[in-house]
């Protein structure tokens, strides 16, 4: 009984820390995005609230919190309320299997716990795919329940887009799974140990041998991830020049904030997956860049730092792409997904499978 209590307490602590960090990162991202895009467009971004506008996220949060919560007439009240909750929950539960730091075990009152991953389940990556696909319901139902043409069109676009690009995400990671021989994110990350060329984007085997690079899968994954999170240039479900704000046109106040949080949490989640699958997760580019020698016991700290660096690189990439590329047309989006990305992802699986058969790792 005592052991169960300790396990629950440890899990709850881990969950609250991860949720806290994720929500803080979301706050930071809202500011960072406006600042970065401002600089890229030779503007200054938000400057009014606090020095250099650093208190802007807090002001935005307060504004959303105190805004009137409107349910449009003719809307389906239950689904209108349920939709943002589904979207946010689906975005947040994925963090349960992300390894943020080295796979080590710590003894807490006689119970072995893994401090840097909430739950190391053996189907980790499938679990994330399952719940990101559930997130689509939030968007579709939100669009339908609003009883508005713009919202409905946004929801329909989201449904088609998410299904098309989810497929590419799923197929892009198969190559990595073939090389790692596991679905657990912890094991996949551990497999990429040591040097930068051991990470799965180049995938040189640890003891030397024939590399089976996954760089094509990496590119397909990143592009599809941008499409799956509804970010520019793939933000057709919320294209403001065509659909006002797409599926959340009718939302305001906290419900709107939920959709907003879900979008940013999804961005962080796909960045974490990309870092863990293709860029070695918490592994440093070279062994001597991890704390070692007399600082050996602090190696977990540098591991977490390397993971954060990689995640923030992807988050910056999201902003960068947004500031650079114009929005695709809807038919271009579909054609690109099915006729360009899908064949590349499938070809990568065939080549990787054959190579992995002849040159086992």
């Amino acid at each position, binding site marked *: 009984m005592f052991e169960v209590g300790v396990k629950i307490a440890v899990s709850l602590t881990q969950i609250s820390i991860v949720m806290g960090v994720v929500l803080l990162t979301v706050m930071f991202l809202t500011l960072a995005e406006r600042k970065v895009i401002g600089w890229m467009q030779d503007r200054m971004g938000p400057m009014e609230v606090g020095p250099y506008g650093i208190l802007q996220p807090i002001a935005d949060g307060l504004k959303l919190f105190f805004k009137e919560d409107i349910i449009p007439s003719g809307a389906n009240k239950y689904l209108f309320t349920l939709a943002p909750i589904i979207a946010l929950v689906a975005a947040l539960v994925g963090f349960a299997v992300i390894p943020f730091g080295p796979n080590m075990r710590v003894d807490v009152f006689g119970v072995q716990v893994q401090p840097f991953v909430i739950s190391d389940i053996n189907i980790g990556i499938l679990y994330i795919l*399952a719940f990101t696909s559930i997130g689509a319901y939030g968007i579709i139902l939100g669009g339908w329940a609003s009883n508005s043409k713009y919202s409905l069109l946004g929801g*329909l676009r989201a449904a088609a887009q998410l299904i098309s690009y989810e497929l590419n995400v799923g197929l892009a990671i198969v190559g990595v799974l073939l090389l790692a021989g596991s679905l657990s994110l912890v094991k996949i990350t551990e497999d990429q140990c040591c040097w930068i060329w051991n990470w799965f984007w180049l995938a040189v085997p640890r003891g030397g041998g024939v590399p089976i690079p996954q760089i094509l899968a990496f590119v397909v994954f990143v592009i599809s991830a941008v499409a799956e999170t509804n970010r520019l240039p793939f933000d057709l479900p919320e294209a403001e020049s065509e659909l006002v704000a797409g599926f959340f046109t009718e939302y305001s106040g906290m419900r709107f904030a939920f959709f907003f949080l879900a979008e940013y949490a999804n961005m962080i989640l796909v960045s974490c997956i990309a870092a863990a699958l293709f860029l070695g997760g918490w592994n440093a580019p070279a062994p001597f860049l991890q704390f070692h020698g007399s600082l050996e016991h602090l190696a977990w700290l540098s591991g977490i730092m390397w993971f954060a660096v990689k995640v923030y690189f992807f988050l910056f990439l999201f902003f960068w792409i947004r500031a650079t590329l114009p929005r695709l047309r809807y038919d271009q989006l579909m054609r690109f997904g099915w006729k360009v990305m899908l064949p590349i992802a499938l070809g990568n699986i065939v080549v990787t499978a054959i190579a992995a058969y002849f040159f086992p790792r």
Partner: protein
Amino acid sequence: MAQLLFFYLAGVIVLTAILVVGLRNPIYSVLSLLIMFFHVAGLYVSLHAEFLAAVQIIVYAGAILVLYLFVVMLLNVKREDRYHYQFPIGALLGVAILTEAVVLAIQRGYSEDVVPSPPTSELSFTGNTEAIGESLFTTYLLPFEIASLILLVAMIGAIILAKKDILTR
């Protein structure tokens, strides 16, 4: 504990399955089907088939049901009364199948072991993902290939039906 979990999952599955055909609003039908898929996945997890549970959610809840929802929303049917006239036939069939189930249950007799215990063979040690892959590509290779061929035929058939003009051109 395991029995309690099983009865909860089974109860919700039966209830939501009835709601799928019973509710008048097609969107609500789709949503109760979604809840049902989740509980079926829960049933798989309680049988230590995590891979199957994840695939159940990815394929059925994540892809197929989204397409259902897509179609229902596109047609914009607020109420679908047409199919509720089939109630008498449905009731007849339902009673027949229920009787069959009850008769079978009485014949088999009461068993203490409601929840099948997880497999204790060597499969459970290698992990169920590997086990599924192993058996699909060795023991059940032919059925597996036939199933994929049937799916391919269905896919081509759908394209032919949707694009009739490509044959005449």
